[in-house]
Every structure is written in structure tokens, then in C-alpha cells.
């Protein structure tokens, strides 16, 4: 599923990132690569969201979130 459909407080593992080259690289250097665990901290009405990646919070726009495909991480 795409990250925009993610629920607040839930963790997801990145499966694929479909974004333009430039943005993809910017995400990668922040440690958001395929296989990274993302937790959704907050969501806004317009689709932008706050996520936590490798211990750091980021605000990302809707178009960024739409390019990230994830799978839910089952909580123990």
C-alpha cells in the first residue's frame, strides 16, 4: 500500500520508492531506503505527514508520501 494510507502510530517497512531521481536520492541520504522502517507520527488533511525514520522526525508532503510503498510491520 502507499504510505499516505498509513495509520497514525503504526510502523511500516518500505518496499519500493517511486519518486523522481532527485528526491529519491535526498530520501536515501536521510536513511530512507528500501527496507527502512517508517513510523507514522501524524497526518494532515492534505496528505502531508510527519514520519519518524531512523530516530529522526521528518515532515513530508503528500506527493512524497504517495511515492513510498510500504507494508505494515506486525507489532509484537
Amino acid at each position, binding site marked *: 500500500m502507499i504510505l499516505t494510507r498509513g495509520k497514525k502510530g503504526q510502523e511500516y517497512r518500505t518496499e519500493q520508492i517511486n519518486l523522481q531521481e532527485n528526491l529519491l*536520492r535526498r530520501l536515501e541520504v536521510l*536513511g530512507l531506503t528500501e527496507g527502512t522502517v517508517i513510523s507514522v507520527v501524524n*497526518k*494532515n488533511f492534505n496528505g502531508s505527514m510527519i514520519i519518524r525514520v*531512523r530516530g529522526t522526525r521528518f515532515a513530508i508532503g503528500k*506527493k512524497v508520501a504517495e511515492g513510498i510503498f510500504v507494508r505494515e510491520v506486525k507489532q509484537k
Partner: protein
Amino acid sequence: MTNVAFIGNPNCGKTTLFNAYTGAKLKVANWPGVTVEKKEGAFRFHNGNFKLVDLPGIYSLTSYTMEEIVSRDYILSDEVDVIVDVIDASALERNLYLALQLIELGKPVVLAFNMMDIVKERGMEIDFHRLPEMLGTPVIPISARKRSGLDILMHTVAHHKENDSNKYFEHHHEEESLHKHDHHKEFAMVYSDEIEDKIDVVSKRLSKKYKEIQNVRWHSIKILERDAEILKKYPIETEDILTKNYETEIINQKYDFIHEVIHECLVNKTEKEVFTDKIDRLLTNRFLGLPIFLMIMAVVFFLTFRIGDALKEVFAGWLDIFSAWSEAVLLALGTGEVLTSLIVEGIIAGVGGILTFLPNIFILFLALAFLEDSGYMARVAYVMDGIMEKVGLSGKAFIPMVLGFGCTVPAVMASRTLENPRDRLKTIFITPFMSCSAKIPIYVLFSGMFFPENPALVAFSMYVIGLVLGIVVALVMDKLDKKSSDDLLLIELPEYKTPSLRTVIIYVWSKIKDYLTKAGTTIFVASIILWGLLNFNVTGLVADSSESFGAQIGAFIVPALKPAGLGYWQIAVALIAGLAAKEVVVSSMSVLYGIEDISSNAGMSEMMVLLAAQGFGALNAFCLMIFSLLYVPCVAAVATIRKETNSTKHTVFSIVFQLFIAWVMATLVYQVGSLFVG
């Protein structure tokens, strides 16, 4: 002389550290991207001379953003002797990524683990014995804010400069590599066998073809990552090697190693970050986020005008006394009438009048300092992203706009954090519509005179008009510009912290100093010139200022201002003079109407009588405020726009455009308003 470069992730405290060493007072705040230019400073330590360079924060040594290119080019140049990588130890995982890249460069690197006070607060401990073993480079715990560990850090830097001896690495990888190119004893960061093989092949080719390359391994890795700049600079045969893009793998393996490091060196990895999350639950709430932001801004302006006004009365009282005293002294000394007039009606009225607004300016910047240093600024980008997206900008473009409430010059410079050049330009065009602090005296004076029931509300309306107009202009530009924007929101949200007293003092004092300097230079000179223009014409000294040079100049543009309700030669002169600095509009009014204490209640009512006699009423005053809000910013701002856009065409467009909008809006309000006021 030792050249030391400070590098590190955005918002990790490089500038705070730089200030601590050099005694400089560069601006620091708690949002990523405050430093956009490299800054140099010097200091002496133990009989050694050090040159320090503060670089813009970057996440990686790639070359995708302006900041990255500036910082990387400098780090790669021969100018740097020692690299100090400032690391936010409270966000170790992400910060170590850049550290690994820097270590790979092969230059002397010292890791400064900053924010150790926060690490301790959270109950975490870092193994500073094991870390250098794993990374092969000195690691020094410091706190730039608390100024601890600074001497040890510089001491290490001085020693590390000559240190070229082989480092000893001790890793306990789960499966110790039995590969023929075992690099584990040589390098901190060792990749998978597949990648190490490729690195070896590329290294061989590189060093054969380009003997001048010093750090071959780093260049080889960059080639495997298909770094555009390096590939262009050192083209080699790669078709047989680059069978796929290794960038993602290289990044992932670095993060894997970082996990290993953190696993071994970080004790008590508790996630005690609930504080920030709790605040964020409220401040970035989908329903409350926007109202809370608007409320905060309303409170800021309310404080600026209400409390500022109360204090201003005190200042105005002192000015009155000083003015009367000066006049008496000058007369007693037998000073000529002309010179007395210059000093009392020109300089004291002009410059002094402006100084009485100091409390308002002080409170505004105090509030902005708190907003910037608390960590809230980056949240504003998130909260405003919805609205900004609709006008084709990302929420990040809103940060320069908020800064614009303080001063247009740094606000325009802050637009550098936007990656997309088109969005940068758009942001630069709309930032001057944000009402800057220099316009406060205009609002205080005219809303105080003509809207005595609700002066703060009328002043606040100017901020709203400027903000709304800026957003509408961005929307129109977006519609005209067919290509849709691709500057998408991506910004780090720092931890909230209590603003540091030192930071706030540095910030506010630098603004106050700017204001005083402006009063002593620009406004001082403008007041003298204006006094000259008002008291002379070709025949010499004139008794009636309506026959002066000033009146003649003003009369020239009066017809153009008439539809906007501003067709008075005095107003015209004040607006022209206001191009030097917006406060000059007010200082000019006092010189023009010969009022020595324009900001006091007595001065205001005196001025109002004079204006009313000319038929200048509340509607005219409102239009004057709108025109002042929107027309061409001061020369300093125009110069910054020229520098940042690097285009005379765009600068001229910006000037003409602002003038046009100001005229249209003021005219619209005056014409429509006249129908009701009669």
C-alpha cells in the same frame, strides 16, 4: 595556521560552536538551514593560529542541493587541514552517516559529539573508548551550548593535523571476511565482497589514469554511486563494472555498519522523546495546528503593539524633554535660527522620533527569537503545507515568509533552502509583502492617530492583508506558470527545546543594533537631506516649505497618487524618502510637518490637526498604510533580491511589480471606501 572546517547535519550546532570559538555573533536558531553561506573566523589557541570555517549543514556528501555543493567543494579543496564533523549525539544514527562519508575521504577528521547535555538528560551513555576503535578517528564529547569540551576538541584538532600514521581498526563483524581484499584493518567502512571487488577495480583504473587523485577509494565509491560531478571530472571506462546502480546498496551497508556501531557504543538507548511528541500532538494536530499558528502570530503582534506602545510613551516623554532642552541650550548658546532648526526639527525630530519605536521592535524580535529557537519554525512548514501546496509552493517556502515579518533581507536569503529555482524566485517575489518591522512605526503612528478605538486591530489587519496578498500573488503566478512545481515538502523536525538565553540575546541585540545603526546613518542622513529640501529652493532659504525643492519634487508625483487618496506633496515626499528605509516615512512626516515629538500623544494630535486641515482623513491614512506595506522594499532589501536572484531583470520586475500592486490596492480601497465614507 591550521584551517579547520566545521561540517555536519543541519541544525547540529555548528554555528553555535563557531560562535563559541571565535566570539562571533552569527545567527543560530532551531530549524534546519539557518546557515546558508560559509563563514570564516579566526582565533588563537595555545600559541597556534586557527582559521575556522562554518559550512551550511548537509546530510550527505552527494551533490543534489546548493548547500551540499558548497560544503563538499570546500571540504574537497586543499584549503582544509582538519575536518571537524559536528555530530548531534542525540540523533546518532543519522549523523553518523555523514561521518562515515567524511572518514572515507581520507582527510584528518575529528568527530565532535555535540549536545552531550541532552544525551545525559535522556539517560543515555556513549562508549567513547570503543567508538574511536571502530571508526579510526578521534571522538570528543562536547556541548557547544554549555561550552564544555571546547579546549579538548581544539587540542585534538591541533594534534590530529599531522597524524597520518596507520590507524588500527578493531571490528567484530559476525562473519569475518575471508576475502582476498580484506580491508577491515585499513578502513572503518568496509562493504560487501561484491562491492569491495568493484571498488578495487575502479581504484586501479582511476589511479592509473589520474595520478593526482589523493583519495582514490572515496572517488571509486562515488563512481559506483554514479555521482554526476565525479564521473564528469574523472571519466573512466566503467561499462563492465557498473552493471547496476550500487548507490542504494552502499547507503544500506553504511547504515548497517552504523547499527553495529550504535549497538556496541550506545548504552541505555531509551527513547525518552515523549516531550517533543506530546507538544507535537497539539501543535501539529490536523484540526488545531493552523488555528494555533494564527493565534501565536496574533499574540506576537498584540504584544508588539500593546506593550510596545505603553513603553513607547515613556520614550516619547524623554524625547520631549530632550528636544525642549536642546532647543533651550542652542538658543542660550546663541546658535543661529537655521542651525537650531536643522538640529531640532531635522535631526532630533527625525532620528529621535524613530528611536521611540525601539520597544515595539524589541518585543517583535524577542518573540521571533523564541519562535525560531524553540523548534516551532519547521512545524510551521508542515502546518502551512496544505495552503502553500494549493498555490504551487511547498510548506517550506513559508519559513522565509515568517522571517519576513522581522526583516526582508534575511528572509530573502533564507529562500536558499528551497531546492527548486522557480519556487525560490516565486518566494523571493512574495516575501516583501510580509510586513517587516520597519513598517511598525508607520502603523503605530497612523492607526494611533486615525483609529484611536482599535489601533492594534488596524495594525494587525496590515499583516493579514500582506500575508493574504502574498499567497494570492503566488497563486496567480502558479496559474500563469504552466509547469507544476516539484519542490515537495521534506524537512527535518528538530526536538523542541527551551530557547537558550545566549541565543536569544545575540539575536535580539543584533536586531536592535541594526535598528540603532539605521537610525544613526540612513535615517540621520535622510532627515538632514529632507530638512534641506524643505527649507531651500533655487532662491535660497524659504519661509514656507510649500515653495521648497521638496514640495516641487512631491508635486511632480502627486497626480499619480491622487486616485489612491495620497495626493499630497508631503505624503509623496515621505514615500520617496521611505525607499531608503521604511521608518523614514515616519521620520519624514515629523520633519515635513515640523513636529518634534511625533510619537507622543501631543505630537500625534498636533499632526492630525495639520493633516485633517488638508482633508487627509481615516480612509487616507488606511490607504497610506496599505501603500507603505506593499510598495518597493527598502534599498537594502532590493540589493539582497538582486544578489539572490542574480538577475537585474528579475530585480527590476520585482520593483515595478510591487509598486504596481501597492498603487492598485491603495486605489481600490480608496475608491471603494470613498463611496461609503462620502
